[in-house]
């Protein structure tokens, strides 16, 4: 049963291997801690700064439940839910995005490219505009629709297993169909609905309330451990499905677990904040550049996503003359990167 005893190995080589591994894992840790610190700092800034500045003491007081004149409303009711949703949605998008990109070994395979976010958006737009639903019902519909779209893309792409490229192309097609459904629904919207439904086109954190934040927060708390528990398996599957299976991964089972968890994250976050453009798509590759290849990117990508949404939302509110929803800002960042990535992938046939 036991493996053969390794032939005599020079201790110097073992030490070199251990040193190399420690160096890399300490770099990963350093990057993760730095990202976390930056995200916390950005979160703190979005709570303090705005039309009116509140010092840290006031903000902390509000968070601890004290009544601070002015700050209790502005920070407690407006900025805090908005900031928390920025973190939760950003982390969800980043984590789910990099999961898909890793699993399908292609940076184009993120849920916002292959139609899953579009599915959630289209369902939400129809629910608001045509069916006049609100609140929880919209979220439920968005989630169910995202799962159905994921299933549809998976089934259409399935032939003796799923090949990344086929799934991506089918997903892009489905995504285009669903986007036109959203546009059609919005073209029939009344003025009041339009404001709300616009969220489902670009993603926005305007007017965030705790009712919207809570389901996304719970989903993140439940699904993150599920995904992290599969991080090792995903790393093995990155070497190809056959190699992964040879390394002892139950490939199909892992894939389904991971897809359901990642789609769940996307759907809950989208139903709260809309499909914030390109965050799922951008976070993984940015994290990969920072951390370096080799390690798991799940947590770094989540942190990058949170940071992206926090910064983009803050910039959208205060950096320009007009106020832009967060999705407009991330869209401006993401589109050129998408083009760059397609050009580069086309040249090198590379992966994440």
């Amino acid at each position, binding site marked *: 049963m036991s493996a053969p005893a390794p*032939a005599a190995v020079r201790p110097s*080589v073992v030490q070199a291997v251990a040193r190399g591994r420690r160096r*890399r894992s300490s770099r990963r840790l350093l990057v993760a801690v730095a990202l976390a610190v930056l995200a916390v700092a950005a979160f703190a800034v979005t709570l303090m700064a705005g039309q009116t500045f509140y010092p840290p003491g006031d903000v902390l007081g509000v968070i601890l439940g004290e009544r601070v004149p002015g700050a209790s409303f502005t920070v407690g009711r407006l900025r805090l839910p908005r900031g928390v949703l920025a973190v939760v949605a950003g982390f969800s998008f980043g984590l789910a995005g990099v999961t898909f990109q890793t699993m399908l070994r292609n940076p184009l395979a993120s849920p916002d490219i292959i139609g899953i976010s579009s599915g959630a958006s289209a369902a939400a737009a129809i629910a608001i505009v045509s069916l006049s639903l609100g609140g929880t019902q919209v979220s439920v519909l968005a989630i169910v629709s995202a799962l159905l779209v994921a299933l549809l893309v998976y089934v259409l792409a399935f032939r*003796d297993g799923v090949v990344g490229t086929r799934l991506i192309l089918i997903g892009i097609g489905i995504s285009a169909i669903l986007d036109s459904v959203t546009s059609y629904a919005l073209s029939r919207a009344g003025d009041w609905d339009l404001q709300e439904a616009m969220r489902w086109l670009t993603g926005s954190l305007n007017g965030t309330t705790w009712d919207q934040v809570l389901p996304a927060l719970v989903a993140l708390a439940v699904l993150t451990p599920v995904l992290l528990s599969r991080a090792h398996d995903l790393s093995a599957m*990155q070497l190809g499905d056959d190699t992964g*299976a*040879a390394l002892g991964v139950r490939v199909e089972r892992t894939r389904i677990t991971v897809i359901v968890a990642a789609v769940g994250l996307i759907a809950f976050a989208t139903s709260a904040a809309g499909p914030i453009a390109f965050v799922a798509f951008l976070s993984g590759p940015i994290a990969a550049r920072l951390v370096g290849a080799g390690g798991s990117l799940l947590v770094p990508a989540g942190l990058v996503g949170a940071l992206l949404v926090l910064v983009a939302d803050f910039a959208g509110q205060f950096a320009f003359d007009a106020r832009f929803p967060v999705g407009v800002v991330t869209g401006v960042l993401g589109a050129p990167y998408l083009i760059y990535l397609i050009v580069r992938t086309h040249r090198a046939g590379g992966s994440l």
Partner: protein
Amino acid sequence: MTTSHSLAAEGLTLGYGDRVVVESLDLVVPPGEITVIVGANACGKSTLLRSLSRLLAPREGRVVLDGKEVHRMPAKQLARTLGLLPQSPVAPEGITVLDLVGRGRHPHQGMFSRWKAEDDVAVAAALEATRTTELADRAVDELSGGQRQRVWIAMALAQQTDLLLLDEPTTFLDASHQIDVLDLLTDLNRGRGTTIVMILHDLNLAARYADHLIAIAGGRLHACGTPAEVLTEDSVRAVFGLDSRVIEDPVSGRPLMLPIGRHHVRPQLTPNPLQPVE
């Protein structure tokens, strides 16, 4: 050293969709030896190898490792005994040799478990055995084809399995690197007693390096035995539809196959000059 793992296929029928690729095949892998599988393109060799390593569930029959059906064994437990290097594994962009080889430790690690000292020893041993220690910090995509193949073999070695299956480990390599890889696998087999099963395209290299040669034709076992028993002019005709002369290899004393095509053949050897080859 535990080299007594028995791997066998019993009445194995394999297929994809409606297509049956391998039909009721019986096969025994001799423990502690190098077994080479040969056969024409699309004869079911790779399918067979995938099934032997649990990647493909059989339609009928079973694959048995030490008396247990591999398709019912826990995946990680199997992966600690039997390793597979597929034909075209994927290296994530920018991954270093050290990280890639380290992933071979996956079946020895738990869901969240930390890296242990024995993992470092196993990785170091794999690097040493494949002479890739100097490459440890290089990115895999910068390496030459021969170096990359050695790194992949190191990854499979880090898995520390007593049985190692390889699907065409010498494809895309030039002559010297082919010999290099096959010598390396032979060292492993002789040094550690690792049982090796591999598919090779080149019949003469197969005959040179195999202790046990298996010829597959049309999804069925055509012949198995020592290279001298299996590599004959008749079996080359039956398996590959090719006329040939088989002589003794002056270097190894093993059989050496010389194909007889329609051109560049001395007149007295041409089988039927006027008849087109089917």
